[in-house]
């Protein structure tokens, strides 16, 4: 067996053994039967409502004309550990297949051994660019089962934080997208502006990235003193600078040539593939859960749902840029309308008592102890709660058996589903277009692999 480890270009079959993912990977054409090859083509066509003519399958193309290459999992443009297998004919992509699982850490399994109180620390790490959205989806699912009333102020704080998080997530997208296309200045600007928001998160929640701020029953802490001024400064700065990015990127001929008309997606394909979020809206479908199935108090604020026309890379870029502006609008209204009151539910079964009460009250001490050792029991039932995360529909399917830990915690990660559009979008394009496709689909591998 030892000669298996000899890497030798003269023995390509050994190289295949060493690097192969087995059936998960893309197979060589000469190892692929006609039906398999047709199946893959057919799957793409079926998304279009078409069926495959078996005679169209090009099995004759010999392998010395095409080449299968691996892109990733450590390629800088793959945003983490996405591995793509591309079959190329010269510069053009014939077939593409994402191979995922390199960041799989079993978070759904972990969710079953953590109590509902601890669960937030787990889900917040899934989509690491929009932790608030993860916590929100999870908390709303738990609250639905508990039937616990969330105070008005907590709801508005959640909205404020979720929208700030959407801005920061889209800013990182603008930054990395710029990086992928060689617009390195955008990379620096995107991360610079995101820092404003992360600093505010740190002031509010104590942490910059994995906040665990939204919790079942409310939020972890009230907004800090003088938060209005901070938020207004953030809004003013980012709104103003969004026009600078517009000028920097939209006015850039190279950027436009690489984005406009590249990798178009139609509404039928998007719906068939289950794609949501900016990708779906770029095809012209005005579907935004904040508007169409409102949660929190999104029905009380004024904002526009941005839709595209062509579903190409440029539409996806334009939607995200304009969503930053819309989120700024929502944040401003949150500042205006922020009610006074509690920032978390006063139900002692769900919310731990304030630190000062523990020294004085026996009851508070017991509640504190019970909550942090065994947590609270959640009535048995199954619930699905969905919110609009920066990447699409983020759902949480929660099964409770009446205990203090979820029986099953499933997260419907938008990136995981959106990734299925990648082979379709890459088909027929060049390798440099493939990079823009990964970028504008915006998969977050932490969420894809969970």
């Amino acid at each position: 067996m030892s000669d298996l480890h000899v890497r030798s270009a003269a023995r390509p079959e050994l190289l295949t053994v060493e690097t192969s993912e087995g059936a998960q990977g893309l197979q060589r054409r000469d190892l692929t039967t006609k039906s398999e090859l047709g199946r893959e083509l057919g799957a793409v066509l079926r998304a279009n409502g078409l069926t495959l003519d078996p005679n169209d399958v090009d099995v004759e193309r010999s392998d010395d004309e095409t080449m299968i290459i691996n892109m990733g999992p450590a390629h800088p443009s793959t945003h983490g550990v996405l591995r793509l297998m591309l079959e190329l004919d010269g510069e053009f992509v014939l077939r593409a297949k994402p191979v995922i699982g390199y960041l799989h850490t079993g978070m759904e399994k972990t969710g079953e051994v953590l109590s509902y109180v601890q669960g937030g620390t787990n889900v917040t790490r899934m989509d690491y660019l929009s932790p608030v959205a993860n916590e929100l989806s999870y908390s709303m699912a738990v609250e639905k089962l508990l039937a616990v009333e969330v105070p008005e102020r907590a709801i508005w704080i959640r909205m404020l934080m979720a929208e700030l998080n959407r801005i920061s997530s889209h800013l990182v997208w603008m930054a990395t997208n710029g990086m992928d296309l060689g617009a390195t200045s955008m990379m620096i600007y995107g991360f610079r502006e995101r820092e404003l928001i992360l600093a505010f998160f740190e002031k509010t929640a104590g942490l910059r990235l994995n906040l665990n701020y939204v919790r079942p029953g409310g939020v972890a802490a009230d907004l800090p003193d003088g938060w209005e001024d901070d938020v207004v400064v953030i809004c003013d700065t980012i709104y103003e600078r969004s026009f600078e990015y517009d000028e920097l990127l939209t006015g850039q001929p190279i950027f436009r040539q690489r984005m406009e008309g590249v990798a178009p997606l139609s509404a039928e394909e998007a719906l068939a593939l289950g794609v949501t979020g900016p990708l779906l809206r770029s095809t012209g479908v005005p579907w935004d859960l904040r508007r169409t199935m409102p949660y929190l108090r999104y029905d009380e604020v004024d904002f526009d749902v941005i839709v595209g026309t062509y579903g190409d890379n440029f539409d996806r870029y334009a939607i995200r840029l304009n969503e930053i502006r819309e989120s700024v609008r929502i944040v401003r209204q949150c500042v205006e309308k922020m009610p006074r009151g509690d920032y978390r539910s006063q139900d002692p079964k769900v919310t731990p008592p304030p630190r000062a009460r523990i020294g004085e009250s026996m009851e508070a001490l017991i509640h504190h102890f019970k909550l942090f050792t065994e947590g609270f029991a959640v009535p048995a039932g199954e619930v699905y709660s969905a919110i609009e995360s920066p990447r699409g529909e983020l759902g949480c399917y929660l099964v409770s058996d009446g205990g203090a830990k979820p029986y099953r915690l499933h997260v419907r990660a938008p990136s995981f589903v959106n990734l299925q559009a990648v082979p379709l979008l890459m088909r027929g394009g060049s390798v440099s277009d493939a990079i823009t496709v990964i970028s504008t689909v915006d998969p977050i591998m932490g969420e894809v692999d969970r």
Partner: protein
Amino acid sequence: MDAGGPRRSKGGNAEVIPLPPSAPPGVLTSDALASDAGFFPTPDQYLALVRALKDDGFELCADLCGVDYLEHFDRALPEGVTPTRFEVVVNLLSLSKRVRVRVRVQAGTKEPRVDSLFDLYPGSEAMEREAFDLFGILFDGHPDLTRILMPEEWEGHPLRKDYAVGRVPVQFKEAPGPR
């Protein structure tokens, strides 16, 4: 926990959605879930029901996942549904009607197996692969039923309830170590 078993969340939050006219006869429904209307087809009715729902305006297959009810054969189900160990849960979304429905199919106990939704919703492909990978539920008609999150040579299906939770052994200072 009281003697009457665990507390159950009150259902009925969802609007009652009638079965689509083209649905196979005899599908059991429930409005007693904590959210959304629920349909409980048998594995035979499953594909026909989802097809009827798709024709009825449920354009998007939002979510598909498996659940292992190893410890809960006594869970609340509408009368007439025979509980099995594995359940496949499909959440469908209608953009035109702005409603969600949930389809819960009892997939079996020993060798869970249901039809694949790939022909109706190509987007369920990755989700079914995930359910196969983590639960070992087989999907008939799926074009590429391979593992998706775990390595290809992995043994077992990690989200099953009889699959142990992995742990890192704690090393204490005084404990006799390997060195």
